[in-house]
């Protein structure tokens, strides 16, 4: 037993060693993490400032909630309406627009609904009329919010098709694309996740290039007035760097297969 106890102690003692470095916690979205953007950006920022950035990747709704509770220092998300409301309510401060990319509608390459083109709203109307299977995030993420805005604009209530052609996975972009790929269904996704997604099956891009598919990312600091432990200086260092000339260059320099994924704000 003495031997086992010694091992146990060694393991327990080793754990706090993870917390030595100066770090901040960033609540962000699955699209930025899973596309590989953070793995490209953060080492540059860490080398420059010595601040380690710990990213917890969730849906935008959950990420904002995490910031509201004070469990993060910075939120890096994409749901402008929700972000501005939370700034007005005093939960976040110093909101800056960092970059944008776009949403796309993916679906079977053969496009059986004939929904393809540049008009996202027209495509959704066609999909609803033909009752083609459509997979939704259904998780209050930024992408889900954008999808619901588009349905509203199309004058379609997708809840009518729930259980039939409209399927809500209640999970992240990746699992939702896995489901769409398995069902050969249509889905709205951000381009970044799509480009780095490997299990595409028969799916391809059906709609792109509509101005309404614009996807804006914002960054903001959790209010130090509401949560006194928030690492204000370190958090602001990240926000300032992301919006600096150097940060913008780094964002523009992130490419998958030669394709630029995110476009920094001018």
């Amino acid at each position, binding site marked *: 037993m003495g031997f*086992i106890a010694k091992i146990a102690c060694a393991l*327990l003692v080793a754990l706090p060693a993870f917390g030595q470095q100066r770090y901040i916690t960033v609540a962000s979205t699955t699209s930025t993490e*899973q596309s590989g953007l953070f*793995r490209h950006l953060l080492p540059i920022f860490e080398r420059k400032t010595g601040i380690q950035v710990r990213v917890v990747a969730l849906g935008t709704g959950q990420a904002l909630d995490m910031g509201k*509770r004070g469990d993060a220092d910075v939120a890096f998300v994409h749901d402008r309406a929700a972000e501005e409301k939370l700034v007005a309510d005093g939960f976040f401060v110093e909101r800056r627009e960092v970059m944008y990319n776009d949403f796309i509608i993916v679906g079977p390459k053969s496009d059986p609904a004939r929904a393809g083109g540049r008009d996202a709203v027209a495509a959704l109307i066609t999909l609803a009329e033909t009752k083609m299977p459509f997979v939704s995030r259904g998780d209050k993420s930024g992408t889900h919010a954008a999808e619901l805005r588009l349905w509203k604009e199309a004058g379609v209530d997708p809840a009518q098709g729930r259980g039939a052609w409209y399927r809500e996975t209640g999970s992240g972009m*990746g699992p939702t694309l896995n489901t769409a790929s398995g069902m050969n269904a249509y889905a709205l996704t951000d381009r970044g996740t799509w480009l780095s997604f490997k*299990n595409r099956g028969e799916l391809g891009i059906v709609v792109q290039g509509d101005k309404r598919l614009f996807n804006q990312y914002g960054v903001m600091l959790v209010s130090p007035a509401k949560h006194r432990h928030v690492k204000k200086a370190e958090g602001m260092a990240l926000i300032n760097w992301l919006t600096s000339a150097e940060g913008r260059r780094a964002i523009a320099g992130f490419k998958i297969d030669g394709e630029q994924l995110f476009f920094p704000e001018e």
Partner: protein
Amino acid sequence: MQEFPEILLDGRLWQIVLLSLQVSLSAVALATCAGLPLGAALAVGRFRGRDSLIVVLNALMGLPPVVVGLFVYMALSRAGPLGAFGLLFTPGAMVIAQTILILPIIAALSRQAVEDAWREYDEQLRSLGAHGLRAALTVLWDIRFSLLTSVLAGLGRASAEVGAVMIVGGNIEGVTRVMTTAIALETSKGDLPLALGLGLVLMTIVLVLNAAAYLVKEAAQRRYG
């Protein structure tokens, strides 16, 4: 044919494996220290409400990891009662969650083992003048080899669960990413071959741990009977 995944090449995999072992073995150590005496006390103790306690403990073996994760998240969140410690999204939080998850398993299984042995030794121990705690500890020591199985059941649960560590750890690369959360991440990126490969690595590690435990037990049993 896809290119060789970089996770296998740059040492990140070993960091993930090491952290998985650290977290799960720490949780097993803590849950064993608390669970074995608890199981023994329930086995030999005679008090009111004992039966209900045993039923509750047995039921808690089926605790959903997500529920444990959520519970620990609420407790450790800055807005929660233990928020001031800043433990959320650290390996420490993951150890706490897994300990809660497997404590009922180790306690309930060891309770059964001790109770069976107790029935056998009861008279003998009493004739030797051993009572209560002293007798319980004697029995625990005597059946230490069969208790190993309850501990291994706890280890199996800890190393296999993803729900709790995902919520309280946050799957932060280089800080709280463990084998199961890495598998979940690769699955959601659609890289199913890599996810499956990581799954095989995890199962191999668990197999090696169990083989090691078995060999130690066999050797000790031969030596000390």
